[in-house]
C-alpha cells in the first residue's frame, strides 16, 4: 500500500517536472527578453562622424542648437536688411539726381509732340491709358539703373543670405563637433548591418536639416520676384504722383486745343505771306509751321516756369513712395527667406534631436542586441 502511494507521489513529481519543463520551453520560444531602452544613449551622425550622446545631454544640445540658429539667422536677417537699405538708398539717391534731367526732357518739344501723338492715338482708341506715365517712368527709371540693378541686387542678396545662413550652420556644426568630441564613437563594422539603419537615416536627416538644398527656397520666396514686383509698382506710383501734382495743367484740354492752335497759326501764317504772290502757299505753310512750333515752344516754356517745380516735386515724391514700398517689400522678402530656412532647420532639429517625441520610421531609438540576423556564422 505504502509502495503504491510512493509510486503515485513519484509519478506526480515526474508529471509536474515534465509540465514545468514543457511550459518553460514554450514560454522561452514565445517571449523575447525585456530590453532597457528608456535611458539608452542615442547615436548621432554628423557628416562622417558618429557620436553617442545621453538623452539629457541631447536636450541641452537641442536648446543650444535652437538658440544658435535663432541668433545666427536673426543676425543674417538684420545684416541683409541693413545692406538692402544701404543699397536702395544709394540707388534712389542716384535716381533722385536724375529728376532735373527728366524734367528737362519732359519740357522738350520732342516729348511734347510725343505726348500729342500718344494723345492722338488714345483719342483713336488704341493706346494704353497710362502711356505718358510709362514714358516718364522709362525716362526716370531706365533699365540699366532700375530693372537690371534690382535684379543684380536680388541675386546678390539671395546668395548672400543663403551663404550667411550656411555659414551659421557650418559654424554650428564645428561648435557641436567640438562639444561632442568626448562622445565620439567609431563607425559600425562595415558588414555588420543590423539595427543601424534607423540611426543612419536619422543621422542623415540631421545632416541635411542644417544644409537644406536651396532650390526649395528659390521656388518659394525668390527675391527676384520681389524685384520684378517693385518694377511693376513704379508706373502707377509715378502716374499717381504726377496726376496729383499737375491736375490743373492745361494740357488736359487735349487734341482739340492743339488743333485749334494749329488753325489759328495757319490763319496767322496766311496773313503774313499775303504779299508774296505765287509763293504764298509755301510761305504760308512754313510760316504756320514755324508759328505752331514757336507757339508750342513758348507755351512749353510758360508751362515749365509754372509747373516744373511741381513736376520735380511729384517725381521726387513718386521716387520716395517707390523707395518706401520697395524697401518694405525687400525687407519682408529677406525676413521670409531667412525664416523659411530657419523654420525648416528648426523643425528638422527638433525632430532629429528628440526622436521619441514623434514616432516614425526615421525616429525610432536605435536599439538592438548586437546579434542581428546579419553576419557570418563561424
Amino acid at each position, binding site marked *: 500500500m*505504502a*509502495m503504491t502511494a*510512493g*509510486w503515485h*507521489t*513519484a509519478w506526480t*513529481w*515526474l508529471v*509536474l*517536472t515534465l509540465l*514545468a*519543463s514543457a*511550459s*518553460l*520551453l514554450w*514560454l*522561452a*520560444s514565445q*517571449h523575447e*527578453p*525585456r*530590453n*532597457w*531602452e*528608456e*535611458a*539608452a544613449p542615442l*547615436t548621432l551622425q554628423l557628416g562622417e562622424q558618429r557620436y*553617442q550622446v545621453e538623452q539629457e545631454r541631447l536636450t541641452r544640445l537641442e536648446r543650444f542648437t535652437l538658440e544658435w540658429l535663432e541668433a545666427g539667422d536673426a543676425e543674417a536677417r538684420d545684416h541683409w536688411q541693413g545692406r538692402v537699405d544701404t543699397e536702395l538708398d544709394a540707388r534712389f539717391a542716384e535716381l533722385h539726381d536724375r529728376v532735373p534731367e527728366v524734367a528737362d526732357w519732359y519740357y522738350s518739344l520732342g516729348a511734347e509732340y510725343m505726348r500729342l501723338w500718344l494723345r492722338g492715338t488714345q483719342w483713336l482708341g488704341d493706346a494704353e491709358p497710362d502711356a505718358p506715365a510709362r514714358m516718364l517712368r522709362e525716362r526716370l527709371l531706365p533699365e540699366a539703373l532700375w530693372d537690371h540693378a534690382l535684379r543684380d541686387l536680388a541675386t546678390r542678396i539671395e546668395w548672400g543670405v543663403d551663404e550667411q545662413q550656411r555659414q551659421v550652420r557650418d559654424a554650428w556644426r564645428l561648435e557641436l563637433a567640438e562639444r561632442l568630441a568626448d562622445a565620439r*564613437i*567609431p*563607425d*559600425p*563594422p*562595415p*558588414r*555588420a*548591418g*543590423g*539595427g543601424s539603419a534607423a540611426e543612419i537615416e536619422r543621422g542623415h536627416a540631421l545632416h541635411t536639416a542644417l544644409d537644406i538644398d536651396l532650390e526649395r527656397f528659390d521656388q518659394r520666396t525668390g527675391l527676384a520676384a520681389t524685384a520684378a514686383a517693385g518694377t511693376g509698382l513704379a508706373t502707377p506710383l509715378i502716374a499717381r504722383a504726377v496726376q496729383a501734382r499737375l491736375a490743373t495743367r492745361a494740357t488736359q484740354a487735349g487734341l482739340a486745343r492743339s488743333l485749334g492752335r494749329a488753325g489759328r497759326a495757319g490763319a496767322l501764317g496766311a496773313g503774313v505771306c499775303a504779299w508774296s504772290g505765287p509763293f504764298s502757299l509755301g510761305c504760308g505753310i512754313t510760316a504756320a509751321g514755324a508759328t505752331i512750333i514757336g507757339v508750342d515752344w513758348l507755351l512749353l516754356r510758360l508751362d515749365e516756369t509754372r509747373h516744373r517745380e511741381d513736376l520735380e516735386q511729384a517725381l521726387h515724391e513718386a521716387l520716395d513712395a517707390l523707395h518706401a514700398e520697395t524697401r518694405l517689400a525687400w525687407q519682408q522678402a529677406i525676413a521670409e527667406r531667412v525664416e523659411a530656412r530657419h523654420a525648416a532647420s528648426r523643425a528638422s532639429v527638433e525632430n532629429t534631436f528628440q526622436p521619441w517625441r514623434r514616432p516614425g520610421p526615421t525616429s525610432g531609438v536605435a*536599439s*538592438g*542586441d*548586437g*546579434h*542581428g*540576423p*546579419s*553576419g*557570418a*556564422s*563561424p
Partner: protein
Amino acid sequence: MSSSSPSAEASPTPTRHIAVRHAFTLTLLVIGLWLMHMNLRVLPEAGVVALWIAVTLLIAHGGFRRHRIRRAAFLRGYLEPTSQWPRRLRGGPLMALRHLVIGALLGGLLLITLARIPTQEVWAALLVAGFVLVLGEALFARLLRGHAHPQFAPELARSGALRVTGLLLIVVLLVLALQARYPDLTGATLEQAVWFLVHHEAARSHLLEAGLQLAAAQDALRLWLGQQWFPQGVESLPALLGWLLVLAEQAFLALGFLLLANGLLPLRPTNDTLGDPRNAPVIE
C-alpha cells in the same frame, strides 16, 4: 548492490522520490534563471544586487558543504580521530570566505551570461543538463553503494555527476555557440567592433550595465580575433579548435548553472551500509 538485501529493498522508493524531486527542483531553478534572463535588464540596482547575493550564497553554500566533506575524508585518512586537529581543520570561516569569493565571481558571471543568452536552445540544454545531473547522481550513488564510505559517497556521487554533466553541457553549449549567428566584423577595426557590441548593451542597473558592457567588449575582442584568424568559419580542425577557444566562455554558464544546482540540491542521503559485514574495514 544485491537487490535481495533488506536495505536495498527499502531504498528504491525514497531514492526515486529524491530523484524526481530533485529533477523538479532543477526545473524550477531553470525557470527561475529564465525569468532572470527575461527581466535582468529592467531590474533596479537593488534587485540585481539581491539576486547576485542570493546566487553567491547558493553557490558558496554548495561548495562549502562539499569541501567540508572532502576535508573530513582527508582528515580521517591522515589524522587520528582522537586528535584535536581534525576538529580545528574541518573548515571554518576561511573556507567559507574562499567559497563566498568564488561564489561572488561565478554568480556575477552567471548573471551577466544569463542576461546575454542569445538563443532559446540554451534553455532546453540547461533543462536536460539538470535531468542528467539528477540521473547521473542517482547512477553514481547506485554504483558507489557498497564501495564508497557512506559518509563520503554522496559527495563522490555529486562530484562525479557534476563533472560528467558539466562536460556534456559545455560540449552542447559549444555546439550551440558554433551554430549561432554573430555580427560580421570582417573589415572592421577592433575599435569599431568593440563599440558596435558595447553600444547595444543597456540595463537599468548601472552595475549590470557595466558588467554587460565589459562582457560585450571582451566578446567583441574574441569574435573579432576569431573572424580575423578564421574568416571562413570552421573549415579545418585548427579552425574548429580556434573557434572552440574563442567560444570557451560558454563554460562559465555551465559552471555557474551546475554550481547553483549543487547549492540548491541537498546531498543525496545514502543508506548506511557500514553495518554490512562487506563494509568492514580491511585490516591486514
